[in-house]
């Protein structure tokens, strides 16, 4: 029961004029962004700290949020990235042996504005029908009459055409050492990378050098990488021309390359494919992906509002030889992975590093190692 003394009321206002009311949750004030829903039932801490959610107001479809509090181990980056958080029933008290503070405490300390008590199901159905759109959460002094709140929302930036990688990327290169003896060195282009990616590479004996999105080809080659990794990240992939150019140079040099999510779209573009915006995207940790080579299904964690053009199993010509759409989502036929057949490069639209989400796709990192191995030989 989120108690709602009139004082702490809050409103979620959508670009199309629809208004949802609840109580202020986390920081009070105003926040603008693109409203999207995430259907994961676990992992709110990982979700909130995932840079890919930068500039997005995330709606949790799971009603009870905050039950396990906030711990010191599960952050996927050094801060909360979501622009705002919309939930139905926040826990009054967290309960988990790893919990160090409550979710509201974490939100307040980082100034993240949220709203609770919303009928998140009605909201989700609305987004499903009308598509992800601009929205704002208003509470405390920021609360105003609907007309003015709607105007403020409409004045906010669009996600289409937004170049956000620069806003989330690391300022300076840093190195994540391999666990145990080092087998490979990987240059990872940080478009919004999650902590678990270098961690999983490290577990496999990979030393990862995380480079800023602005890194030049020389910076990249300077690492003397056995492989290059393109991370996930926020924004419209159509805007990342620099990363695309960089990727082309990597492909020309036949350096093994692996891209996930945003990185997959960058690879796709480097292979000559276009991207488009999905109506409401894929955001959850229960999403099936079929590998066209084996026909097997993986249950995956996903978070993408854009997708690559293409048909399941399709083979297409590229400046680097033939490539194929290697993975797709049986829910809607959306492209979930591409693979170059004549240069050592592949990418997937989902998250093998999970966090939050199932580990079904973890083997893709081993596949990346495989590429680097054969490349050595």
């Amino acid at each position, binding site marked *: 029961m989120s108690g709602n003394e009139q004082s702490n009321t809050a409103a979620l206002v959508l670009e199309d004029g629809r208004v949802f009311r609840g109580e202020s949750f986390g920081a009070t004030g105003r926040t603008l962004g693109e409203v999207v829903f995430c259907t994961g039932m676990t992992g709110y801490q990982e979700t909130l700290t995932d840079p890919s959610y930068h500039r997005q107001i995330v709606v949790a479809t799971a009603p009870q949020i905050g039950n396990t509090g906030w711990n010191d181990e599960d952050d996927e980056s050094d801060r909360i990235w979501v622009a705002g958080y919309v939930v139905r029933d926040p826990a009054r008290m967290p*309960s988990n042996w790893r919990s160090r503070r409550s979710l509201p405490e974490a939100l307040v300390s980082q100034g993240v504005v949220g709203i609770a008590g919303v009928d998140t199901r009605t909201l989700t159905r609305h987004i499903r029908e009308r598509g992800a759109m601009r929205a704002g959460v208003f509470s405390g002094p920021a609360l105003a009459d609907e007309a003015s709140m709607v105007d403020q929302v409409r004045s906010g930036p669009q996600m289409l055409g937004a170049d956000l990688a620069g806003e989330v990327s690391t300022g300076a290169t840093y190195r994540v050492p391999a666990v145990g003896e080092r087998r490979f060195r990987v240059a990872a282009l940080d478009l919004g990378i999650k902590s678990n990616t270098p961690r999983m590479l490290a577990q496999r004996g990979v030393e990862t050098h995380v480079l800023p999105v602005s890194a030049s080809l020389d910076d990249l080659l300077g690492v003397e990488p056995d492989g290059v990794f393109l991370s996930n990240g926020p924004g419209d992939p159509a805007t990342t021309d620099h990363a695309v150019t960089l990727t082309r140079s990597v492909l020309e040099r036949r350096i093994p390359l692996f891209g996930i999510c945003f990185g997959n779209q960058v690879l796709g573009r480097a292979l000559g494919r276009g991207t488009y915006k999905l109506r409401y995207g894929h955001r959850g*940790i229960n999403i099936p992906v079929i590998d066209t080579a084996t*026909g097997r299904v993986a*249950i995956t964690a996903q978070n993408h509002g854009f997708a690559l053009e293409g048909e399941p199993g399709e083979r297409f010509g590229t400046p680097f030889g033939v490539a194929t759409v290697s993975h797709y989502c049986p829910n809607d036929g959306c492209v979930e992975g591409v693979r170059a057949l004549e240069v050592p490069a592949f990418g997937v639209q989902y998250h093998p590093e999970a966090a939050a989400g199932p*580990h079904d796709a973890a083997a893709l990192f081993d596949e990346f190692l495989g590429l680097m191995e054969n490349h050595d030989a």
Partner: protein
Amino acid sequence: MPKRTDIEHVMVIGSGPIVIGQACEFDYSGTQACRVLRAEGLRVTLVNSNPATIMTDPEFADATYIEPISVEFVEKVIARERPDALLATLGGQTALNTAVGLHEQGVLEKYNVELIGADIEAIQRGEDRQRFKDIVRSVGAEVPRSAVCRSMDEVRVAVKELGLPVVIRPSFTMGGLGSGMAHTPEQLERLAAVGLAESPVTEVLIEESVLGWKEFELELMRDRRDNVVVVCSIENIDPMGVHTGDSVTVAPAMTLTDREYQHMRDVGIAVLREVGVDTGGCNIQFAVHPETGRLVVIEMNPRVSRSSALASKATGFPIAKIAAKLAIGYTLDEITNDITGETPASFEPTLDYVVVKVPRFAFEKFPGADPTLTTTMKSVGEAMSIGRSFVEALGKALRSMETAQAGFWTGPDPGGESMRSVVDALRTPHDGRLYTVERALRLGAGVAEVSAASGIDPWFVDQVAALVELRAELIAAPVLDAPLLRRAKRAGLSDRQVAALRPELAGEDGVRTLRHRLGVRPVFKTVDTCAAEFAARTPYHYSAYETDPAAESEVATQRDRPKVLILGSGPNRIGQGIEFDYSCVHAAMALRAAGFETVMINCNPETVSTDYDTADRLYFEPLTFEDVLEVVHAERASGAGGPGVAGVIVQLGGQTPLGLARRLADAGVPVVGTPPEAIHLAEDRGAFGDVLTQAGLPAPRYGTATSFAGAKRIADEIGYPVLVRPSYVLGGRGMEIVYDEGSLASYIERATAVSPEHPVLVDRFLDDAVEIDVDALCDGTEVFLGGVMEHIEEAGIHSGDSSCALPPITLGRSDLEAIRRSTTGIAMGIGVRGLLNVQYALKDDVLYVLEANPRASRTVPFVSKATAVPLAKAAARIMLGATIADLRAEGLLPAQGDGADLPADAPVAVKEAVLPFHRFRTPEGHGLDSLLGPEMKSTGEVMGIDASFGKAFAKSQAAAYGSLPTTGAVFVSVANRDKRAMVFPVKRLADLGFQILATSGTAQVLRRNGIPCTVVRKHFEGDGNIVDLIRDGQVQMVINTPYGNHGPRLDGYEIRTAAVSRDIPCVTTIQGAAAAVHGIEALIHQDIGVEPLQALQAALRAGQPR
């Protein structure tokens, strides 16, 4: 991979009678499986001894064998049907064990039948606790330390190693039968002995205790291509130590971070792969240490389980249906998700609501049974609820239970409690522990304190604490305004709960009036497997209160067809179970076919009625007046502008919906069928008396008393023995046969607080009377006798517990005519429109009326199957206006004749009840007396059907308890009044070559009648006595009729409990003995065959009435 082409004929094994630990969830899964397999064009052969199931309806399989589920009988079926494959993973432990038996005895090989779903190896790896533990370790996961023991000595050694407390768990038992937790050496000795005895392979697992850890379950599915999905996670609120079947459980898990959840998922999947269940569902249980997060695997069920049914209803993902498709070769991605209609089944459902399951117990039926919750399952049923938050779902679940308390604050607090005493009470798991949690918090205990005492996770305790705070707010508020009331409703509080806190609102009705005036009503959401990510096709709804003004309801409008709402029967309990669900499901089928839109309301996750495609719409809601009224409101709204709600059916779900009839009608709801006034005529003792006098029908003399003096006066007047029962009780019905003044006095003291408001009924008890059960249809002008059942045990043993035969085996034509006359008189006198059940007692050629129930009865499915007439379907049609004549013309009812004049060559069907005594123990660990009486105690029933009574009876016994003996020793000890009647059957047994053992008195009579017999010592006569003999397995059958007076003699008690624990037939009535003799003769003649119901019914329809 597409469907396999090498399988054309599949045999499905059901789970047999409803017993504790194995209830109608397996009817639900079996029914789904049969539907799917036939839709795939396969021939389906089904074996199940339980007539009350939907799956045994002739239309669900090509060949339906209502035969005992034993290797012996199933082999007969296989020999006759020659199926290509056997699907045994949908019939619970019974089917699984039978499959193992068929394999071990080479039957599967002999007839070259392939086991699909899980093969023998996988079953053994999953079921053999030791092998299973090794597998878990092999995938790098942990299990509690343990040792397998085959003798008491091995047990003692193991415990030296592990240290107390330990858990004792027999291999190959279901529902935790025979398992327990030993804290002291004494308990160890006792429990281990029981465990060894209960295990079919005399083997127990002695295991490190992880008592108090958090308990979780995962439901997984795997296909041939090794794709695995987790359908649902379930968290037990009661920590380890309370059987999951007895725990309050929640889906999805509430207190796990993603890391811990994914670890659990990884382990679960690895274990599933290693065990090698090739296709289908499985259930894995885990324990998690609350402070360290250490995770151990507890067990796996390599089959569809109770939790799978719960998970299916909780998520909308039809596990059984999909398991069946996977078994015949499909892969998950080839199967579409019915609910969305477009996305594939290869995904993991995600919930935007919370599901709570609460178990239903029946301890009041078993005086002396230890009500402490342990590792042995004791609950007889459960209710599930769906809400948008945990507290909302909890509130709905608690008021679905139909116990005295319908949620917090709806009953008086037990007096004389202190905060201390309540917190201490939390340390022992018991039914309704959450009520205790609430009281502890209300009395000032802290969340941490309550959590420590109960082992319940603080998050859940805090949720209850929030309710306690809300309670204070509700009491303190000067006025109950819309925002506060809405918050109360959003927290899951019922009008009745609010009324309890705000007396000035004049009760539940007052609160409802206010609520409606303030426009505070629920919205109806949809269970869609995907948290609204995709549009749902299936109208599977639940109610929720939202504070957000933007909240929307999702009930689609439907204006073409008239709507009929069918009220289900709620949680299973003794006396009201699957039989009523059967009738509700039939109503849905019949009315849908007749052009109505059918709407089902029920809260029992185990049932077929709560399958989302049984009715056109499903509302998973409590069956309380308030909740039903809101559904009616929603359906009226969604039907506005069309024919709307044509009727609400309250007659098929048993007593639960029947009890709502009056209030619904008063609220302007169109209750169809027998009107409330008529229901009153049948249920009010006085009014019913008048109906009988009107019709000139005799009933046992009776009177009502409000004091012992009064009761004594009546008893003296009508003469002992008398049957006494409170006219009003909570929980148990407290019915007893009283043979003398002394016991009458003690009853009046014990049974209830007798008072002017709560008088006792004193009936003349008809000794040695034949009891007769009748199910009939009435349309207001004509009466159709569905079936006349002659009980085998005499009147005095509850109709639900006694076995009965149809057609009646000893009743003459004149008796049947009397029955027809009386039934017609009652049906007309009451004004029945639909089904009527009457119980008669025939004594000295006088037909006494015991009671009439103006509703579907427990025997409707049995009668429908035995006579090939779908009574419930006909009743539903009659309630909506059809006449018996119409239905005869239509062919739903036979053109002429009825169930009272079956063809002379009609097969005989015998119903036998199944009793749960062996699951209960006194706190000292002794067994319970298996004596039957006027209080119903059985949990389920079986049917035996064959050409003659003897064969049918033998089958019913084989199905219920394991076969009757054909050789060996029979022990006989009967009350004096039975000695004469006993002579003939016992002589027969002697002639059949049985050794007769008897106590001195009985032996004397037998010898005088030229029956050789050996005298054995009575229990209290020291060593080598009869009880020892039974325990040593030297006795194959017991015939023991109790002395009349209440409180069975210790000896009889010891004998019967010994028999029960040894699982040998224990006959407690002379009639039963005679029937047993018939059965034994049939068995000895070795000519018992099997016959599909389809063939039997075809013959019946063809046959001419005599």
